[in-house]
């Protein structure tokens, strides 16, 4: 093969006359060596042209020209034009693309645009700031215009630009609200042509005159992929009141599949400019759509809908949606920073502390119920190392030694009711005996371990009986204390939690009555642990762990007696029909069984209240005056 590569560069540059070009092409088909050399030459071109190159250098030149040329016809105008300094190989990439369209060479593999923002260079951005505050109070300009293409008065908003090999701009028509993607050369309106797409603005030719359209409020420079994990949060009046699932976005072919932390379908997302539309799917059915506008960095989107407001209000016992704005927020989770959801963190911490129990319990079982006097005694038979209990940067672990397993089995059993002459008295006597043993009206097991966590601050306790509890709710509430709306929402959640405690106690009472001749429970010690295993429900969210928050009004009385009492009360008021088949249910629903020992404090200008559990198991929150009216008669 007769190789002379001297013509290869000229061939690449399209500088060869036709006969020479054909000769080179013929040779390249036959000679792998020269074909490889040509590839190397192309590679050099790509490397040269895909470097980052700053743009916006011309700003001062335009200033200088205008200064030297200002004529009366030229109005002195200042415009806020963001000439963000961008190092863009887009132009170079375009040049490379053009070259690579030469015959015999495919598109370059490496012409992918390298777009980088030169944050360091203040020229463009600082001038923008100055230009926005473009005049002093007396109207004199304070800064020379960086550039002076007039801002268009066309009814258009620039919602996004996408730079690269195929520059595009997303434009919204302010009159129709429609939004479309345009490329340079496209006609946007009658006699309005998109001329050029730049990082933060576009150039339009409006009936032959060049005008600039800069970014509208809340627009994006270019769109990153949505792939990744997103934290869902519930907002009331723009404040986060709760955190929800972590959602995962997977983007393929323009469609984004959204799944929740359990890998269940949450929905499908699509992007319309910088508006995210998430179609919610539940059980395979679409159940509605959420829409919201992304922030500039595409890291956060707030979405809302009337259906969402209604369902959030009912699910979470949050304030009336008519007087508040409800929304959900999606925030991109930065994999390098810790999960921001305090509830997820708390759950992980509760699990961590719960795992501390097993070695301690096993030790106690082998040592007459006595827990070790020091954690080091657990090694090596019960745990390999005390790492499990170690204090760390983020937690301080306190172990309370000298305690024993609660010996509930050695406590006297609940007296049988069927043979007893007075089961009520027997139950009350039994409860009194147990209260002596427990040292109080509730079977609170002392804490074995207390772990104080940092960031966020949470205290998790492990009882000698193995249950864990946290004191984060009150801490969260205190952290919110300066924000009235968040306080109100959090307070509502705490009240809901308190009501839930009472509902559970209502179930405990029902179970107890079913197995004990329909007698109500005589106290909290008797029902522990057969009916009530988790003593955390005895404490309101605003009380410290170990405090009993509820009072039992009618102890060890038969439901029949209580119903009769209610019927008597109704009869005394002259409003009872003894033939009414619903009379019994009505009586059950009006007999109060348990309630908050203390008033729920007044918050946010609302009066103090109490939660009340009724005999039929329903719970009502009522004002103190209602409480006096409806519970008062039964207290006498």
């Amino acid at each position, binding site marked *: 093969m007769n190789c002379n*590569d001297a013509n290869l560069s000229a061939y690449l540059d399209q500088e060869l006359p036709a006969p020479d070009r054909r000769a080179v092409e013929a040779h390249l088909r036959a000679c792998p060596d020269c074909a490889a050399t040509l590839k190397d030459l192309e590679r050099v071109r790509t490397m*040269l042209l895909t470097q980052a190159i700053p743009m916006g250098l011309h700003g001062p030149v335009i200033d200088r020209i205008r200064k030297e040329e200002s004529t009366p016809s030229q109005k002195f105008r200042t415009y806020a034009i963001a000439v963000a300094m961008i190092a863009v190989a887009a132009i170079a990439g375009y040049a490379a693309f053009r070259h690579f369209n030469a015959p015999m060479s495919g598109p370059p593999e490496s012409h992918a645009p390298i777009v980088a923002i030169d944050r360091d260079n203040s020229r463009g951005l600082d001038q923008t700031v100055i230009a926005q505050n473009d005049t002093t109070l007396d109207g004199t300009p304070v800064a020379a215009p960086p550039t002076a293409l007039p801002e268009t008065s066309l009814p258009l908003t620039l919602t996004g630009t996408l730079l690269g090999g195929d520059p595009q701009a997303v434009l919204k028509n302010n009159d129709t609200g429609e939004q479309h993607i345009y490329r340079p050369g496209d006609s946007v*309106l009658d006699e309005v042509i998109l001329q050029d797409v730049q990082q933060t603005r576009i150039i339009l030719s409006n009936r032959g005159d060049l005008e600039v359209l800069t970014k509208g409020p809340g627009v994006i420079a270019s769109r990153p992929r949505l792939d990744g994990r997103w934290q869902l949060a519930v907002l009331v009046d723009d404040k986060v009141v709760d955190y929800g699932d972590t959602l995962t976005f997977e983007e393929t072919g323009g469609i984004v599949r959204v799944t929740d932390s359990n890998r269940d379908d949450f929905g499908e997302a699509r992007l319309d400019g910088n508006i995210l539309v998430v179609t919610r799917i539940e059980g395979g059915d679409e159940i509605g759509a959420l829409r919201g506008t992304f922030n500039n960095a595409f890291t956060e989107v707030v979405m809302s809908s009337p259906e969402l407001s209604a369902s959030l209000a009912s699910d979470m016992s949050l304030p009336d949606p008519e007087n508040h704005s409800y929304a959900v927020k999606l925030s991109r989770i930065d994999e390098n920073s810790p999960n921001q959801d305090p509830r997820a963190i708390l759950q992980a911490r509760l699990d961590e502390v719960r795992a501390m129990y097993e070695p301690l319990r096993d030790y106690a079982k082998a040592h007459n119920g006595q827990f070790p006097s020091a954690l080091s005694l657990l090694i090596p038979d019960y745990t390999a190392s005390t790492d499990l209990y170690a204090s760390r940067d983020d937690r301080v672990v306190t172990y309370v030694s000298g305690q024993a397993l609660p010996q509930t089995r050695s406590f006297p059993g609940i007296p049988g009711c069927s043979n007893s002459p007075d089961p009520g008295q027997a139950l009350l006597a039994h409860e009194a005996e147990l209260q002596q043993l427990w040292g109080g009206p509730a079977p609170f097991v002392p804490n074995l371990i207390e772990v104080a966590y940092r960031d966020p601050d949470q205290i998790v306790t492990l009882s000698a009986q193995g249950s864990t509890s946290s004191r984060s709710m009150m801490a969260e509430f205190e952290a919110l204390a300066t924000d009235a709306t968040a306080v109100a929402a959090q307070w509502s959640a705490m009240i809901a939690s308190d009501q839930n405690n009472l509902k559970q106690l209502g179930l405990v009472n029902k179970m107890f009555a079913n197995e004990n001749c329909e007698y109500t429970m005589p106290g909290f010690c008797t029902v522990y642990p057969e009916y009530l295993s988790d003593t955390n429900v005895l404490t309101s969210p605003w009380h410290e762990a170990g405090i009993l928050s509820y009072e039992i009004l009618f102890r060890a009385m038969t439901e029949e007696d209580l119903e009769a009492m209610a019927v008597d009360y109704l009869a005394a008021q002259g409003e009872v029909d003894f033939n009414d088949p619903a009379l019994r249910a009505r009586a059950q629903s009006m007999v109060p069984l348990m309630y908050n020992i203390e008033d729920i404090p007044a918050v946010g200008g609302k009066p103090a209240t109490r939660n009340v559990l009724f005999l039929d198991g329903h719970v009502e929150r009522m004002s103190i005056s209602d409480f006096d009216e409806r519970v008062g008669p039964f207290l006498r």
Partner: protein
Amino acid sequence: MNMHGGSPTSLDEAGLIKRVCSGDVNAFELLCTRLEGPLYGYAYGMVRNSHEAEDIVQESLFRLYQAMRARKLRPGGSTRSFLFAIAHNLAADNRRRARPSVPLEDSFLAQHNGATESSLLREQLNRALADLPANHRSALMLREFGDLQYAEIAETLGASLDEVKVWIHRGRKRLATLLDRDGQYLGKNVHEL
């Protein structure tokens, strides 16, 4: 919003130049946004210092505007050719005036930390460019960044067409041997294949 039919009156370079010549500064600005990137690439390759390169870009653009307003551009002559010729002369002046050997700019990375990867590539590239004979480098850069034809390059450099053809080819081949596939600079002592 509809996509209206009809041929777009898109402004090509020739259209822009016409408008600039009749005093349309806005058109010149648009022209600048198209030219300044390649011009900077060229200037930086020649002086390897970002401040000097920026100065060259701005001075070249200004002189281009003056020439266009004064209608000094030869009819049929290429604007690009004129612009890059100015830049070439400024860069040459700069080299004569300044230090005999311009040190490679290590601060480039610090200034452009948003584009680390491509900055690294650029540094490697500039080491390699520094190894080229000046004529080869100028010819190649005018070709790649200026997108000039061989005849225009010959005129700018005051050389023959054949010389330009050889310089560009040798410059490219030398760079190909100095830089591996990932753009890594392999060192001065690499011999041509």
